[in-house]
């Protein structure tokens, strides 16, 4: 739903559907998402594995595979970047940048860090022969020994160092938007701490919009201004106080299942990727389920500062 007062630099997703044709049928990875991510705000997208958040990220970045069926729009700077992002100059790197997961796999194993860094700077037209710019960035992220890092190959650096390098690379062209895809996935506590630190630094030093796709609630709590909760391809709740005051039954159950809240399990399982439910995706497991929920897809209702996709808030 496109609100009339959205600034041009917002990322507006409108009726977004992304379906993967598979031998068994259709996998509805993203199944009707309407949301506006505000510029210069940090939004977290949380949800279990398989809820479709990664696909959402891919759709925004424009790296969905060719065979995927998509419909809807992603508006940015008055352009539908889902249809075509080449019309925006410097879309990659200057408009939007990525901090990928698995730092070890995300760099070219045969090229030194310095050279790869230069490749990225080149896309924005920067030449950094003296390595000054790179050094600044690396030091900012806690790698003062920049010379050694720049001359090294990816396999010669530890996971934590690579994570810092990737952060540096992502903001080196001063992008307007940053997408962090599961930045703490598979990392131990100290490494996670590094990530939190880096993201904080980015938040304080740059004025950009950030989308953090994660299932690490601590990360979400610590830096995200807004949180969107995804379930079965849809955004079920969105707002600044989702974690403190959850409204949607799924969010409540999700939070109740956390160790600090008592490990209360949620009965049932999420729907299979190919399953197509006519009504609310969460209805079969919802304690407050009504007959209506099973038949109609609930629209998005306002409830205080939050938006909730649930008939309880009609």
């Amino acid at each position, binding site marked *: 739903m496109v609100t009339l007062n959205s600034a041009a630099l917002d990322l507006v997703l409108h009726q977004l559907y992304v379906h993967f044709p598979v031998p068994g049928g259709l996998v509805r990875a993203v199944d009707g998402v309407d949301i506006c991510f505000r510029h210069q705000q940090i939004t977290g997208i949380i949800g279990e594995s398989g809820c479709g958040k990664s696909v959402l990220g891919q759709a925004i*970045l424009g*790296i969905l595979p060719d065979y995927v069926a998509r419909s809807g729009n992603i508006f940015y700077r008055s352009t539908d970047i889902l249809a075509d992002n080449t019309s925006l100059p*410097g*879309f*990659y*790197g*200057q408009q939007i*940048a*990525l901090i*990928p997961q*698995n730092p070890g*796999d*995300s*760099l*070219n*194993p*045969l*090229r030194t860090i310095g*050279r*790869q860094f230069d*490749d*990225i700077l*080149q*896309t924005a037209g920067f030449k950094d022969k003296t390595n000054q710019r790179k050094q600044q960035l690396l030091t900012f992220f806690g790698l003062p020994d920049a010379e050694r890092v720049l001359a090294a*190959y990816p*396999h010669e650096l530890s996971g934590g160092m690579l994570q810092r390098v990737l952060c540096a*690379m992502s903001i080196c062209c001063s992008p307007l938007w940053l997408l962090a895809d599961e930045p703490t996935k598979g990392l131990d506590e100290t490494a996670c701490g590094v990530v939190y630190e880096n993201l904080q630094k980015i938040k304080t030093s740059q004025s950009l919009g950030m989308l953090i796709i994660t299932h690490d609630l601590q990360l979400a709590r610590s830096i995200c201004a807004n949180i969107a909760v995804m379930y079965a391809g849809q955004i079920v709740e969105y707002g600044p106080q989702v974690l403190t005051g959850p409204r949607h039954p799924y969010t409540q159950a999700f939070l109740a299942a956390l160790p600090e809240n008592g490990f209360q399990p949620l009965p049932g399982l999420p729907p299979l990727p190919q399953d197509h439910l006519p009504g609310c995706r969460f209805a079969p497991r919802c304690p407050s389920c009504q007959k209506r929920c099973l038949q109609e897809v609930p629209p998005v209702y306002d409830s205080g500062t939050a938006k909730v996709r649930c008939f309880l808030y009609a």
Partner: protein
Amino acid sequence: MISYCCKRILTAVPVLLGISLLAFILGVLSPGDPAEFVLNQDGLYAPSEEQLEAMREELGLNKPLWLRYGLWLMGVLQGDLGSSYITGRDIAAEIAQRLPVTLELAVLALLMAGVGGIFFGSICAVYRGSFFDNFVKNLTNIMLSIPGFWLALILILIFSEQLRWLPTSGTGSLKYFLLPAFVLAFATMATVCRFMRGALLTEFGRQYFLVAKVRGINKFNLLTRYALPNAIIPVIALLGNYFASVLGGSVIAESIFAIPGISSMALEAIRYRDYPVLQAYVLVSGCTLILVMVTVDLLIAYLNPKVKLGERS
């Protein structure tokens, strides 16, 4: 790295000893009396028993086997590869004359197969699914089925006889080597092309490549600086093997195009049971093979910093 080279040389010695011994044994076991071949010119002339016996004495065929091999080995260690039974010429001099010719042919064939295969394979990968890609896929199928000697004769018919662009045979400047090198290279060119295409498509799907794409790096750099270096390493190993095999096995190209290289020398030696030539050939081939393998190992280690010397990715 020096230690690696030393280690390789040390392990090469028993290998070379083994293959030369094997060649010697095979020569001794196979039917055919070299003395007869020397004297009878393909059946034109029937030598008498005394003549045969005298020739056998001269060639040293009556000595015990271990002595023959031992004498040969001692000669080799002093740099003397012996003389041909049939022509009496000094083998080391003959090889010194023939090896550069085969080498030139092999290098040219390698360039054609390598550059051609990598170039077309890359284009196919980048424009996957296009008309060009499908066309090349079918073309490589055909190329892999065409026998070399047939291709050689057809090419001579077209380019030498009809069009007169290239000479039929012989050696000389570069244009003499174009057709024979092409005949040697074309099947491997097809293999390299398909291999390259597959390897590149694999790289295109890798995480680092997608991340690099999302950084906005331009397509040409993505291909040449990211995908290609990663994809090319197994291709280099392939080409290394190919080069070594061409050095020893370019028989068809050499005999049809009248190129006096070491492969045609080996063929004649086999036919006429010229054992000293055969043993020298096996030794020289073995040495060049080891040299090529070491070069390939060094090249791969240079290109891929993750690989330690001695491993191949």
